[in-house]
């Protein structure tokens, strides 16, 4: 058998070469292309002009809107993912109970998942319209407010509203993960706990939560990646405005690339985003096993 310099067999490597090559090509080519664009001046219509070194990065980092968007992206991700997990755990626990109409309830919770993000965002944009939006009309009829609130006109309202919509659309996926997790928890341990006199809260803290933890971890990682890159909600509802006050990195990137005609700078932003996500994932992978040892 052929062996490598380290004395390991070569055959396994040869066997995975085809899929490795395919993966490298599929991931590598776009990555190469983006790196290539990010160090060149690129015209509005995608023609490569001159090599410009790190100019694109320098320009982007010198832009206060970029820095503001960077921070806002962190808040956005934290808000949406945190909110989603907080909402999803009780929802999953309820849906895990056996009650009449559970099928219908599960379907309703899953429903937002089946609608495209863009459509959801458009519907919410209408719902939050000042004059004829369902939210203002409902609140006014209920007598909660007396004059319409200008939801999307200022960032004070618009950004939290967008985070709420973000949570709403992320809940179905997260609940699905948790339901899968809950169904793998054996029922008899609860019985044992009850006999020992554990309260419902104690059961949740000491049994459900630890057993659900790997699923929560998975939900956090996947959601962070999705939410960090999530474009439609903010773009449809405010396009990053008013006055750039709701931009996150991905909407900023789109505006650079396709509105202002600077694909080179957009490529630079996307590399920064890639680095951030890779950093997060690496950090997370390091933290995770330690937690495992602790319990």
């Amino acid at each position: 058998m052929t062996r490598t310099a380290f004395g390991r067999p070569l055959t396994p490597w040869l066997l995975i070469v085809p899929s490795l090559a395919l993966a490298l090509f599929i991931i590598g080519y776009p990555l190469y292309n983006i790196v290539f664009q990010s160090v060149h001046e690129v015209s509005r219509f995608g023609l490569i002009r001159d090599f410009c070194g790190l100019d694109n990065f320098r320009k982007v980092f010198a832009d206060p809107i970029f820095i503001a968007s960077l921070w806002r992206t962190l808040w956005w991700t934290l808000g949406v993912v945190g909110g989603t997990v907080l909402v999803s755990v009780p929802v999953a626990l309820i849906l895990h109970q056996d009650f009449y109409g559970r099928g219908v309830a599960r379907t309703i919770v899953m429903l937002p998942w089946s609608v495209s993000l863009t459509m959801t965002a458009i519907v919410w944009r209408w719902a939050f319209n000042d004059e004829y939006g369902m939210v203002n009309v409902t609140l006014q009829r209920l007598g909660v407010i007396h004059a319409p609130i200008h939801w999307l006109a200022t960032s004070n309202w618009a950004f939290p509203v967008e985070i709420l919509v973000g949570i709403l659309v992320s809940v179905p996926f997260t609940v699905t993960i948790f339901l899968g997790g809950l169904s793998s928890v054996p029922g008899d341990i609860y019985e044992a706990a009850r006999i020992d006199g554990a309260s419902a809260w104690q059961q949740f803290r000491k049994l459900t939560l630890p057993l659900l933890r790997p699923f929560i971890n998975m939900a956090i990682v996947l959601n962070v990646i999705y939410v960090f890159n999530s474009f439609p909600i903010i773009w449809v509802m405010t396009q990053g405005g008013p006055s750039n006050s709701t931009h996150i990195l991905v909407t900023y990137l789109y505006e650079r690339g396709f509105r202002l005609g600077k694909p080179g700078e957009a490529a630079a932003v996307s590399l920064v985003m890639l680095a951030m996500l890779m950093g997060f994932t690496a950090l997370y992978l390091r933290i995770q096993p330690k937690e495992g040892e602790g319990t």
Partner: protein
Amino acid sequence: MQVRLTQRLTRAAVALTVMGLAGFSAQAETVRVTVAFYSDQTEPYFKKMAEAFEKANPGNTIKIEMVNWDTLQQKLQTDISGGTNADLAIIGTRWLLDFVKDDMAEPLDSYMDPAFKGRFIGTFLAPGQISGKTFGLPIAASARALYYNKETLTKAGFANGPKTWDDVVAASKKIKASGGYGFGLQGKEIETDVYWYYSLWTNGGDVVGKDGKAAFASPAGIKAATLYKSMIDQGLTQPGVTNYSREDVQNLFKQGRVSMVISAPFLAKQIKKEAPTLKYGIAPVPMGTTNATYAVTDSMVMFKNSKAKKTAWKFLDFLFTKEPRVAFTSGEGFLPTTKEEATAPQFADPDTKAFVALLPTARFAPTITGWEDTAKAVSDAMQAVYLGKAKPAEALKAAAREADKALGK
């Protein structure tokens, strides 16, 4: 280098495919046309034109590719960098400069004889010309005017619409007293900047000066911004202006909730369809110290790398004859760009006439680099002013600094 090679390979592949398709007769050519979606009339129109052309020129094929305006730039960008662009395309005239800079647009002068050039209304041909050469033909043109609600404005004492900004303010105060919103002010998304230029221009200001630098942070600019801001503060506009895109403001007008709005000819078409009972009038953009309006053209360009230039030109020639022009312009609610079509009875209605009458005072978006950056900087500044986050003078100064970074570069 790798990219170029890939592009070349793609191009070769496309060329082979095209040759394969057209293989049988050497004369036959396929012309691909990227067309922007203006309304649900656009696609049937271009399909019909393609059929008529194919009938008159047997063997040739016209392929229409419809794209939404929102994604047009993205589609062109992808196509061009992949080397798979069409032969003809509709583009926003403001992108033309980038096309010419990248050497992608074919200069059309060698195809045009004086008679062809003579077909156009001069004002509309000019924006498609860069340093003396014609690169784009005006396929669509529009201008802006003030739409006013006849009922409420008559009650307010301006039966023929307001003439000046003072009139607008006075009328809005009366309309507000009877429970409506006076002036519809756009504060969100595309053309937020333009909505402010109306006031800037009519107060004697300019967006970009003769030196190619931002000129809007002028006394006229401050006056224009202060005017809008004071109208917001007095409740003479709809509340929460930064939540209103162009369509949103137009909807309020159609519903009769705002009484004045500045928009393009197509709003008249929409009103007839969606709010047929609304009585509206069309007046020039209100005056400050001078008259002005905004005019926009979209251009049809031919790509330099096209393999079917002759047939593509023939198709262009056909599109810019009278019948096809009349059908397109009246179907979409644009303004005529050729002299012959302007004489057609379809454009003798008072609405179109009102718009055409404004053309002598029309300003076009200049073909300079950095126009989009300027638009963005101005839109951001206006939103800050409307929200009360910045004073007009400082917001405009900051926007001018931002715009100057990109202008002319």
